[in-house]
């Protein structure tokens, strides 16, 4: 047994100061110190003979202990060169059959009057089966239930809903009723609630009712980069290798009805009142961010989290540079520390540019 080989759905992602080992099958992230990460051949295997020869005294023991613990945690196994051949690297293709994979609909008034049968048919033609509704104003009960009924009979697989919390709906048990009656709701998040809590636990990421005390009353709140938003799975990983992990195959309609790649962006590709989704997507520029990968973004390309994280091209640290790091990320991969982005001196230029000075919450 002269090699240590990672299971091929546990992938090594090297950062400037350390690496992560992303277990894409079980959805966990582990840290690997740089000296060990540097020993990996093809990011897959460690030659144990070489490790003993090329590493100094105490370090050998230290590294071998880490490898032992990786084997114990079922992240890799001891093998020989011949057996290694039988375990090819993971296929790097992004396998997600959709012209548009997800759709975000924003409203300030609580109404989405264009959400009709023919609108759902437009989504269907684009193979768009996942929808997020972001209400910055209270949706009338009747209106939202009409939308949910349309979704119930359609090809849409699930919907996530964000809306303001209010006492009348709370006392009428409206939120709980929606979760019970409409099984395609993956989560219903009520913002501006008295406290932050999980009101109803769902199962397998479906049927969650969540309250947050945060005030989420505009698209400008979007773009936060945080460990809580990491997703460790093969689809996210392969998408981030090949495409932009936020904007690829996304379509949005902002509070004015403007069809955009992302609601927080300036570029509009027509208004939903007089444009179809297909027309908007076909306009030059709609897909311009889709191919910007994390490996091209400054600082992100040195970050060990880059393939479990998502991106943001709407709010940038340097608004003049399309490859700049996301403004709302407080992580520094060179010292491996998280800091508050909004008070960071280097972020003030971007904060002023996007008019985010007023405390967001």
């Amino acid at each position, binding site marked *: 047994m002269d090699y240590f080989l990672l299971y091929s759905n546990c992938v090594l992602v090297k950062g400037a100061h350390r690496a992560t080992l992303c277990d894409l099958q079980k959805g966990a992230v582990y840290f690997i110190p740089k000296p060990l990460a540097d020993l990996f051949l093809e990011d897959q295997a460690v030659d144990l003979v070489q490790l003993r020869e090329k590493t100094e005294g105490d370090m050998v023991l230290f590294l071998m202990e880490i490898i032992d613990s990786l084997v114990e945690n079922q992240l890799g196994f001891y093998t020989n060169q011949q057996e290694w051949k039988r375990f090819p690297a993971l296929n790097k293709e992004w*396998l997600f059959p959709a012209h548009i994979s997800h759709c975000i609909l924003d409203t300030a008034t609580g109404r989405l009057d264009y959400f009709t049968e023919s609108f759902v048919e437009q989504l269907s033609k684009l193979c768009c089966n996942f929808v997020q509704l972001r209400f910055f104003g209270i949706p009338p009960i009747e209106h939202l239930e009409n939308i949910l009924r349309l979704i119930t009979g359609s090809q849409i697989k699930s919907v996530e809903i964000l809306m303001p919390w209010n006492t009348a709906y709370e006392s009428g048990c409206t939120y709980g009723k929606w979760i019970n009656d409409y099984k395609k709701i993956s989560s219903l998040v009520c913002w501006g609630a008295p406290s932050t809590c999980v009101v109803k636990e769902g199962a397998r990421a479906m049927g969650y009712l969540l309250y947050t005390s945060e005030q989420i009353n505009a698209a400008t709140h979007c773009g936060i980069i945080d460990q809580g938003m990491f997703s460790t799975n093969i689809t996210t990983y392969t998408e981030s290798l090949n495409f932009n992990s936020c904007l690829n195959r996304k379509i949005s309609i902002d509070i004015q009805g403007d069809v955009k790649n992302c609601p927080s962006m300036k570029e509009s590709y027509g208004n939903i009142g007089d444009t179809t989704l297909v027309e908007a997507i076909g306009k030059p520029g709609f897909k311009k961010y889709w191919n910007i990968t994390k490996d091209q973004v400054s600082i992100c390309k040195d970050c060990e989290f880059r393939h479990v994280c998502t991106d943001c091209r709407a709010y940038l640290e340097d608004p003049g540079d399309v490859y700049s790091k996301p403004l709302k990320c407080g992580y520094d991969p060179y010292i491996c520390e998280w800091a508050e982005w909004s008070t960071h001196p280097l972020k003030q230029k971007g904060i002023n540019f996007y008019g985010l000075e007023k405390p967001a919450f």
Partner: protein
Amino acid sequence: MIVIHSQQDESTTDDVLDWLYYFGMEQVKRVNGTNPINAKALRINNHTQHSNLFDDAESSAINAYWYRRGHLACEISEPIKLGYSGFVTYFEKEYDHLTKGISQVFKQYRNINSFEDTGTNKLTNLAVAAGVDLLIPDTLVTADVKAIKAFSAIYPRIITKAIGHNRITATIDDNSYINIAVDTAIFDQDKINALPEENNFLPAVFQEYLEKKYELRIFYFHGQVYSMAIFSQLNEATKVDFRKHDTETPNRCVPYQLPEDIEKKLGRFMQHIAMNSGSIDMVVTPSGEHVFLEVNPVGQLQWLSANCNYPIEREIAKFLLHDS
């Protein structure tokens, strides 16, 4: 028109439909569940094959057919079932003949599997596998206690399993039943000693216990081979039968590259049994030998494509679209 025979909650069918819709194909007819053939017609003549087997999908307009899951069945009425016993036997045989005939008719289209494949025989398959020089476990099918004892004396351990079907539903009443799982199990010395020799048992399958480095799940599809290694030895609960999934710690499942000669032999095996697609179970022993266990025509696929990131569903869609 592409016809897919499946079940309403079968997810691989949804995944393949995702790809068909993505490629712009909307002419798809998905038929779910047990399809009674009482009111269907099969017409055979010199000019056309014509039938209303799948309702509005006229067979002449069918471009491709995928049998994924579900049954073709003929419903025999209660009064007949309660009458003279020979009638039911006769009708069952008669409609079994029709079912096989219909399966054959659908094999004339570009197809993936057929209903007939569900009747594939695990015993003859072992013999065919041995015939194409695949290694198989030493297998004994018997109810003879003396023979079992003699067999068990050859090997350190033996296992037992069902001959062909591993579930019994023992009905209690309309709303409840006892599910009997006839899974692969170690047949240890205690159990062997407990068997009285003079008895009227029914037969079962006994095999030498194979030490496993890992198990393989291989999806064979019209000449393409997708293999996955399952590290079942890491978890106690799954050591004997990896289907007994340990939900706390799922087995590690990763892409595997079969040796070329094994791939070729599997291709020959599938040709011999005339099955164009199936999920094959194998074992890799500590000394690196690849041993064939069985093939399942309607095996679970998501497990394989999701853990290994294989484009299986896309390739199925492309095949149905005549694009491969």
